[in-house]
């Protein structure tokens, strides 16, 4: 078991290394000068050179990547160029491990940016996950129990059509009607718990939470339904029924449990992805989370931020994968062999 976990972690680390290198190469070796990007439009040539040195873009790609990787492990200092650091000690910015980079545009480390934006994303994710898991499983069980009836068709049809709507449209509809026209919810604007208390915080997360959950719901409904149906036709359920166990008890004690494993898998991976910023939802509602940070960074050509975010999100998914795999290995020992 331990050996399996170690093997999975090593593969995960390898993947991170490979991903960071590819992302680095992709973004830094593109046809446009990254220093020019960082420096902005109308940047005088000598300033571009300075930026290039400050961010270490004058070094060969491998060296840059090495510095970056080292920064992730032990932290680093900016400007990247040592001579520049010595010349202007007051300008040195400390970037503690795991250092994901430094954004010239925002004059702050990517870590700080992420630390600022992450609570928003986590809040939205929390609410969204709660909504989609509770309602997804509930509707899924409902559909399975009433298989073939109008309820089944209604639930599956409704979630599937909700899924067919583009997220930005769902969000825009909610803002425009539920918030602005009907005034049921306040106009969207993120409020921290410290600012407005739990109630206000939650209230402001309902609409984006629902928007984000809407897309995921269909998958959970269908999966729950399929697995509950499958297990209901298994022998042990039939045995349980024939032993005279009540329908409800059979359903929750046996059938639903069978569906739990795949649900947990899917859940683990989805949560990792959602934590990484619901780009569309955050953009539509204008909540400054990781997704919005990504969109803004992209609009201002803030490459270090984009690279840092891609790596963070990738790492989240890799970690989730490892956790899910290990969980699986615990539940089903056969996995380890495969």
């Amino acid at each position, binding site marked *: 078991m331990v050996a399996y976990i170690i093997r999975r972690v090593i593969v995960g680390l390898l993947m991170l290394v490979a991903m960071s290198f590819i992302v680095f190469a992709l973004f830094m070796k593109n046809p446009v000068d990254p220093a020019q990007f960082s420096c902005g439009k109308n940047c005088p040539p000598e300033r571009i050179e300075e930026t290039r040195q400050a961010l270490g873009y004058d070094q060969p790609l491998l060296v840059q990547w090495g510095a970056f990787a080292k920064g992730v492990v032990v932290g680093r200092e900016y400007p990247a160029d040592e001579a520049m650091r010595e010349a202007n000690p007051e300008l040195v910015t400390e970037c503690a491990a795991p250092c994901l980079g430094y954004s010239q545009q925002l004059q702050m480390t990517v870590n700080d940016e992420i630390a600022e934006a992450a609570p928003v994303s986590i809040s939205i994710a929390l609410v969204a996950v709660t909504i989609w898991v509770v309602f997804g499983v509930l509707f899924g069980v409902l559909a399975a129990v009433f298989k073939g009836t109008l309820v089944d068709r209604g639930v599956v049809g409704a979630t599937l059509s909700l899924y067919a709507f*583009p997220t930005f449209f769902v969000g825009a509809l909610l803002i425009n009607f539920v918030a602005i026209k009907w005034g049921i919810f306040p106009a969207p604007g993120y409020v921290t718990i410290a600012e407005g208390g739990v109630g206000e915080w939650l209230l402001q997360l309902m609409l984006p939470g629902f928007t984000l959950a809407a897309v995921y719901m269909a998958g959970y409904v269908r999966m729950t339904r399929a697995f509950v149906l499958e297990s209901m036709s298994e022998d042990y359920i039939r045995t349980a029924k024939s032993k005279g166990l009540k329908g409800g008890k059979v359903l929750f004690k046996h059938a639903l449990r069978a569906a739990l494993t795949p649900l947990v898998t899917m859940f683990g991976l989805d949560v990792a992805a959602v934590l990484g910023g619901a780009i569309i939802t955050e953009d539509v509602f204008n909540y400054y989370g990781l997704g919005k940070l990504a969109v803004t960074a992209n609009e201002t050509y803030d490459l270090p931020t984009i690279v840092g975010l891609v790596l963070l999100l990738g790492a989240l998914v890799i970690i989730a994968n490892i956790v899910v795999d290990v969980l699986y290995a615990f539940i089903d020992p056969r996995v380890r062999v495969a």
Partner: protein
Amino acid sequence: MTVSEVLIQGPDPEIDPEPRTGEVAGRSPMRIAMDRLLSDKVAMICAGIVLLFVLIAIFAPLLCKLFGVELRAGDPVTDTDSFNYPVIGPPNYGFTWEAPLGLEPNSGNDLLAEWFYGARTSLLVATIATVVSTVVGVVLGLIAGYSRGWGDRVITFMIDLFLTLPFLLVAIAISPMLVERWRENPTMLDNASLIALIVILSIFGWMGLARLIRGEVISLREREFIEAAHVLGMPTHRILFKELLPNLVAPIVVSFSLSLPATIAAEATLAYLGVGVTGRPSWGQTILRAQSWFDEYPLYLYAPIVGIVVLVFALNLLGDAIRDAFDPKSFR
């Protein structure tokens, strides 16, 4: 699952079909599936809808002539009022055959013509991207599954790697770079934006299928007919494409039918984020322009949205039906 998730991961591994080949003697699995599909009313209705959209896309110019509308032919001076609102057509002036879907504010362009041609772009982009990612997925899956050792390891690693990259974020970040390559030649920009979009959708669409095919091949390669071909000295590429491929039709068809709607939805999502085609009408671009008119002139936005929703919904149902048809164990 978000749209992009489905796109990245392909169909859920959990609900993926595991075609039981040769369960019913005498009829090919393809034949059985077709029979099942043909008797499925919902699937047939959806197929009809999809076919309708395909016909609209192919015959967009003809349809425009038929309805007497013209693409991008509006005259702002005569067609719009002092607030730049159209002076004829729904929703403000009632239905008229002159402009069945109304006109576009500001420019006075006909929205029906825009919609017809938009369907064309959407389907074109989604189809090409799905075909490309399917081909890539099949080829890499075959190679990975058949070659033991390093080949397999490298491709599996690639699959996992691409599954790990956050799709939307990478897409919005690399599309300007792809377009940048044509920066020196702006007249090529229209094509550049189209190609960049297709490339992005393709490179994030192949992994699910590749993984699936790999699994299938691993289980198939130990079978007698493959062993026999191997012993007979058949060249590897022949074994892959003549012997193995025909046995993989089911997962390929299922995967294709489920990624197509995901790709269409992804295209609209990317357009919202500013990664879209320029220079030709597309639903995504119409949506982008229509957003500020949403409140006062909603038909502008609703038309392309309805197009996307209906098409994606029908394709999804159809894809489900195809999957069920191939998989006797599925539940409906």
